[in-house]
């Protein structure tokens, strides 16, 4: 595969209360960021089962990002802490599947942080582009 043709495909799980609203704000503020992420709305970052992350990565996604509220701001009190606790488990699973840990990321983006959302996406897309396509990609 020619590298200049490679466009990373990123699955992003955004929590309904902060990050999804942050993405919305980035949109209405007309901020430019790469179009590589497909956002999937979940109610809370703590709702994302580790299997969903692994499934996405083994079925053709080049990377997965989970975005939630900042620690302490969670709409459900501590869902994002649960997500953070699972991060290590997910990274161990990635290792077992032979995937680079950089293909998964957990970020906190609040509803007021449109520019930060755009920045995170820009930076993550570049990281994933540098990594190259996922070994599971057909």
């Amino acid at each position, binding site marked *: 595969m020619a590298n200049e043709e490679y466009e990373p495909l990123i699955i992003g799980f955004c929590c309904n209360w902060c990050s999804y609203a942050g993405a919305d704000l980035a949109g209405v503020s007309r901020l430019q960021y790469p179009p590589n992420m497909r956002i*999937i709305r979940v*109610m809370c970052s*703590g*709702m994302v*089962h580790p299997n969903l992350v692994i499934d996405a990565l083994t079925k053709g996604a080049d990377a997965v990002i989970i975005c939630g509220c900042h620690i302490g701001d969670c709409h459900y009190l501590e869902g994002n802490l649960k997500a953070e606790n*699972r991060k290590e488990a997910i990274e161990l699973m990635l290792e077992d599947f032979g995937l680079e840990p950089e293909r998964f990321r957990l970020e906190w983006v609040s509803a007021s942080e449109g520019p930060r959302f755009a920045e995170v996406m820009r930076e993550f897309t570049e990281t994933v582009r540098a990594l190259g396509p996922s070994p599971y990609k057909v």
Partner: protein
Amino acid sequence: MLNMPICIEADLLVLSAAIIPNEDVDELGRLFKVPLNQDKFFLEAHMKLRPVDFATDGVFMCGLAHSPKSVSESIAQADAAAARAATILSKDEIELDAKISEIIDANCDGCAYCIDPCPYKALTLIEYMYKGSIKKTVERDAALCKGCGVCMATCPKKGIFVRGFKLEQISAMVEAALIGE
């Protein structure tokens, strides 16, 4: 917004005194199970759609606990909070949110992994007799559950899900996003 320094020539510069949150708000927040923002002011359920509500039902806020504001704004917000409280107090029954967790009894083996992580203490382990033997399962209190889905992501056996956000539904969204390429 302009991304550049601007200079305004003024005859008089008036700075308002700083308003800082109470020192013990963390404890108060924990007591009522309501969140604070980064600046330690209380965080409303939605800035525009539910400005005086908390995510926790039946708790409302107004005034400086929310953010620095003028007295007239505080009074307006207090009116709103009182009105919101009256909408609950005036009812004999209240409807619950539909987006809450649901247990699949056939999949649940009562391992109880979901019970501790639940932020609202909505789950309890129960036992009942089924075909002559003891079957363990969990029970969800519909009035306490807020549908955060921490239980769903914790469960190793697909024994609990959040209505509208089943693992299969989220997987289908992921697959649809991947197929499009």
